[in-house]
């Protein structure tokens, strides 16, 4: 999955020699590494973005985890379990990438659990049928890939490298999701209805994943100048729509957008207005599953406290014995 563009604007007035050299390196497409000098705002922006991305992976395990015990065949069960495991792995690399910027994983997890950190709004929607597992792979991971491929060239080395590996796995997940949708849409009438219903529910929230429209996304300039971000929200969203609409038509499904039409002259699929009010509301905490998702993470953390304490106590005893 992926992190959403949520960053707040940052001041960029530093004209010191270090700052100038830093920007020159970025302009020359050099990678910034953990021990290199970097502006504080660059560090903060990255910590926020990478940790939001990590949190999204971890919270994203919940809606799909909801179907692991009900996956309809052994092959599907193994594939879904492996996919959700990959997401945990992505969370782990991303927390590690954030740690290279001088912040501890515990602190980041604490920000998530206390509700101070954001994660992708898409995971606040419920998975109601098996087709949602297909739709998440096809659409949510498809949207994630659009966002993440440019991040493989992000100016910050550890993030860019983590993203290369993550993108490979995401594209596998996306194909797997599409294959679930294909099986359903070629299946019984009930299965086709499930597939259509999943597309109806997931389409608009997926378009929101790219973040607010360019006019309202005031942080973009700085992130683009720092080459953390390389394309605008709207450009990525359009790219996703152009790639996805023909895939949906091949499935024989209908997009829940009466304004969707092919613009021959521009070579793009034009789509209707996104309900940004819904986006803001879900982001602010009022989505169908916000409270449940956070409660589930808090519960797991609280239930595991005695285990983590035990591991620390045992390690301390071993250490004392060795000394």
């Amino acid at each position, binding site marked *: 999955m992926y992190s959403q563009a949520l960053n707040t604007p940052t001041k960029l007035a530093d004209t010191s020699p270090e700052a100038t050299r830093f920007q020159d390196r970025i302009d020359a497409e050099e990678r910034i590494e953990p021990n290199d000098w970097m502006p504080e705002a660059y560090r903060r922006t990255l910590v926020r973005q990478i940790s939001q991305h990590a949190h999204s992976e971890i919270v994203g395990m919940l809606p799909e985890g909801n179907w692991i*015990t009900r996956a309809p*065949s052994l092959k*599907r069960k193994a594939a879904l379990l492996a996919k959700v495991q990959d997401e945990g792995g992505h969370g782990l690399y991303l927390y590690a990438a954030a740690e290279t910027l001088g912040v501890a994983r515990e602190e980041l997890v604490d920000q998530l659990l206390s509700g101070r950190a954001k994660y992708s709004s898409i995971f606040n929607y419920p998975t109601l049928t098996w087709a949602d597992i297909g739709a998440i792979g096809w659409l949510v991971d498809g949207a994630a890939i659009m966002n993440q491929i440019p991040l493989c060239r992000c100016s910050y080395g550890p993030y860019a490298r983590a993203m290369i590996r993550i993108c490979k796995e995401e594209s596998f997940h996306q194909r797997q999701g599409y294959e679930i949708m294909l099986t359903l849409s070629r299946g019984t009438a009930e299965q086709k209805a499930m597939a259509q219903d999943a597309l109806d529910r997931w389409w608009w929230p997926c378009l929101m994943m790219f973040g607010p429209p360019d006019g309202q996304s005031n942080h973009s300039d700085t992130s683009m100048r720092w080459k953390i971000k390389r394309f605008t929200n709207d450009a990525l969203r359009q790219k996703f729509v152009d790639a996805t609409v023909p895939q949906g038509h091949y499935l024989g499904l209908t997009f829940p957008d009466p304004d969707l039409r092919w613009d021959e002259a521009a070579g793009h699929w034009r789509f209707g207005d996104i309900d940004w009010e819904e986006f803001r509301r879900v982001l602010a905490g009022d989505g169908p599953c916000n409270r449940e998702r956070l409660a589930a993470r808090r519960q797991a953390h609280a239930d595991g406290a*005695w285990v983590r304490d*035990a591991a620390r106590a*045992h*390690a301390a005893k071993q250490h004392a014995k060795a000394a």
Partner: protein
Amino acid sequence: MASTSITVEETAERGLLLARADDALVLGHRLSEWTGRAPLLEEELALANVALDLIGQARALYQATGLDEDALAYRRDASGFRNALIMELPNGDFAVTMARLFLVSTATDLYWRAAVADELLGPIAARAEKETAYHVRHAAEWLVRLGDGTAESHRRAQDALDLLWPYTGELFEPAPLGPDPAALRPAWEAAVAPVIARATLRRPADGWMQSGGRSGRHTEHLGHMLAEMQVLPRTYPDARW
């Protein structure tokens, strides 16, 4: 509407394969229930790994029966399952989950080692043994951490052993075909005792032992697990997924 259940014609070979396959599937399913709930992220990944190994083993064993793997997993009633009862017990806390994984995997690892030479199980056993050896190591390390950790973790680990012990006898019940589980018991005792000692835990006494899983007489828990696991294939019997 007619029942969506199937009945399997059980030859001795199929009985052997199903017992091992059901052990792996049921325990793998239980471990998969931990997804999103593990005490730390690294353990989230490890539990999923073990679950994936077990589901993979179950598939290979089901396929060796010559029957459809999904029909076996999704269309048999609880009474058709041949797993040992310990596999189907609810996960409990992390101590119960790890103590079970340790007790079971230690027995299973010995079984796969003995089965490598078996005509029917050999090819599957060779691969499964490598995976199971890792499960034993992982679970043993946790049992030691928990037993030796804090007063609370020690108490929970001891409670887990006490809860599970009466279910261990079934792991060594004689079988008509394949390696003789009863013959593995001394090696199991020898492998389990030092880990329990390192964990500063007490080995529970051998009293009355639970039994019945191999003949399809299960605990109350398996029916609930299957109701959840089998819901889609049972609800839409004509669908392919």
